[in-house]
């Protein structure tokens, strides 16, 4: 999709917005896209890869249909995010950065998502789920699976 990439570059201009757009469009940033982007923008491949791996909301591998970002920053941490993480990992059978075999879930453990007042919190496909409990999580996962 080279001409579509041209459009994205033209409208977003800066590397991070371009990468975000590709992430939203494809669900991840492929090697081929990075290569094309490097050719068109003259930004070195390794530099783009550095940016794409630095941010936890950008990924360089294809992801599952449902993407979970659990916050592990101080507010969530003191409100028991570790227990929540452990529970989700057990429920899904994957660790942070991994995707379930049925490609239904990808799990990320990351930094603050701005919901400190309702900790512990997570994002499911960009939507906030807060004041998490094991029961709540069970419900969310069940809904995704059905």
């Amino acid at each position, binding site marked *: 999709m080279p001409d579509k990439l041209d459009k994205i570059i033209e409208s977003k201009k800066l590397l991070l917005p371009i990468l975000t757009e590709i992430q939203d469009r494809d669900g991840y940033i492929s090697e081929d896209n990075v290569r094309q982007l490097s050719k068109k923008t003259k930004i070195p*491949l*390794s530099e783009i890869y550095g940016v794409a791996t630095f941010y936890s909301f950008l990924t360089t591998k294809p992801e599952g249909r449902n993407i979970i970002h659990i916050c592990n920053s101080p507010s969530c941490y003191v409100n028991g995010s570790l227990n929540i993480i452990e529970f989700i990992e057990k429920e899904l059978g994957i660790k942070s950065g991994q995707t379930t075999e049925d490609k239904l879930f990808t799990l990320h453990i990351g930094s603050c998502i701005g919901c400190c007042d309702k900790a512990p919190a997570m994002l499911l496909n960009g939507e906030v789920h807060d004041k998490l409990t094991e029961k709540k999580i069970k419900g969310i996962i069940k809904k995704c699976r059905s």
Partner: protein
Amino acid sequence: MQITLNGNKVECEKGKTILEIAQDNDIRIPTLCWQEDFHPEARCRICLVEVNGKLMPSCSTKIQKDMQIETETEKVKKTRRMNLELMMADHLKSCFIDTSNHELCRIVAEEGIKNIRFEPKKQHGKDTSGRAVVRDPNKCISCGRCVQACRDTQNITAIDFAYRGHKSKVTPYFEKDLHKTYCIKCGQCILSCPVEAIVEQDHTEQVIKHLADPKKHVVVQTAPAIRASLGEEFGNKPGTLVKGRMVAAAKALGFDRVFDTNLGADLTIIEEANELIDRVKNNSPLPMFTSCCPGWIKYVEHFRHDLIPHLSTCKSPHEMLGVLVKTYYAEKQGINPEDIIVVSIMPCTAKKFESAREELGNDVDYVLTTREFAKLIKLKNIDFNQLDEQDFDDPLGISTGAAALFGATGGVMEAALRTAYETATGKSLAKLEFDQVRGTEAIKNGSIHINNIEVKFGVAHGMMNACELLESYKDYHFIEIMACPGGCIGGGGQPIPTTWEIKKKRIEAIYNEDAGLSLRKSHENPVLKKIYEEFLGDIGGTKAHKLLHTGYVEREL
């Protein structure tokens, strides 16, 4: 401006950093990630000092009026040691124990650290499959010096930091092996690495094996730039010419013949000057770019396919000599070329890659860097400094001053101009030195009238400077580009350290070698005259073309 440095009042210039002031006043502050001529990134925190009671990195902190700076307080020492210990945990712990010579390990020893309390956390795969440059990320301490060298002097960025926080690491894109990327193999990262996490692919073992094999006729050739640098590996001052001892060392190692790449350089010049004159006459693509530097060639093959027709088709000097050894010399001596092993001692890691190029066949079997050659000499317990000087072997050991210049930036241009002018006009040059192309300026240029045509020439060294020159390359007829700053004397295979101060001394030595020789023009090389008569035929002729010229390929990013 006045500041207080370790209790003494010091007058200093505005705009300088604390580190610079300390260096001016002979106060030692250890540094690690800081590199001469680079923007300080203050990553490693080894150069910490106390400023008005607060810890600050001295490399990036500019002085301010009335600063109270202490460089050796308990707080400074304790923090510095902790940082070093943490870094050593990332580096292989064993490295320190076997009294390694890495810069980091030296600093650790200087700071009196005897025990590392932390265990390494990460385990990475090694990247050792490349022909030229290999990496062991387990030794890496993320100081970022290789990234700076690759990005800021070379404008390549084949490696960069990826990921974040404690997961951060230096890697090529998508964690590829380096040889599968657009890395140009210049080896500047090797020169800057303080822990040998990036090194050249070691070929010493293979060479030792062939030396021990009586059925093999092992020939070695030495590049123009290494006679001005090899001595440093044995404690000689930078800029010491060690040609005679270098030859003696090669003979002591058991090489059957020691030939001079400089003869190949003379041959390159004769063919290249002829090609330039041809291109001007026949309206072929101009400017013509020199093709001796394999790093530069790889750059063009990856990034500038439009310039491929502009590259001189001449093989590089050691490849030309390699061909002569396996054809002319083999024929003369009655040796089966398949029994000959050609080893090139080069200041260069990209030459390792070049020697494996398909188009070039097996003319050169192995390339060793200056460092690897020194390692061989040390392994054999040869006392380099006590060796009696010896001469190169016949018939491929005679060269001119023009060839000697190849080691310095602008040298190939100067050598080519001497020959191009004299062969095209039939007149002698009044002055052989082309001052316009000498020195370490980023980009050099000038012009010369040859048969009423004003030939404009440009020279750049270091890929960042080269890229700048490329923006106006159409203004020239002839351009020399060397991928490494300073030319081959600053090559990625040279002794470590290779600083600008040292590089300038090596360049001086090279110009002295040229000035001291009676033959200073490639086309006057008597051996080559004979080889053309007996073997090659016409300059630029069919046989010369078949043996001495090559082609290039388009490579993907």
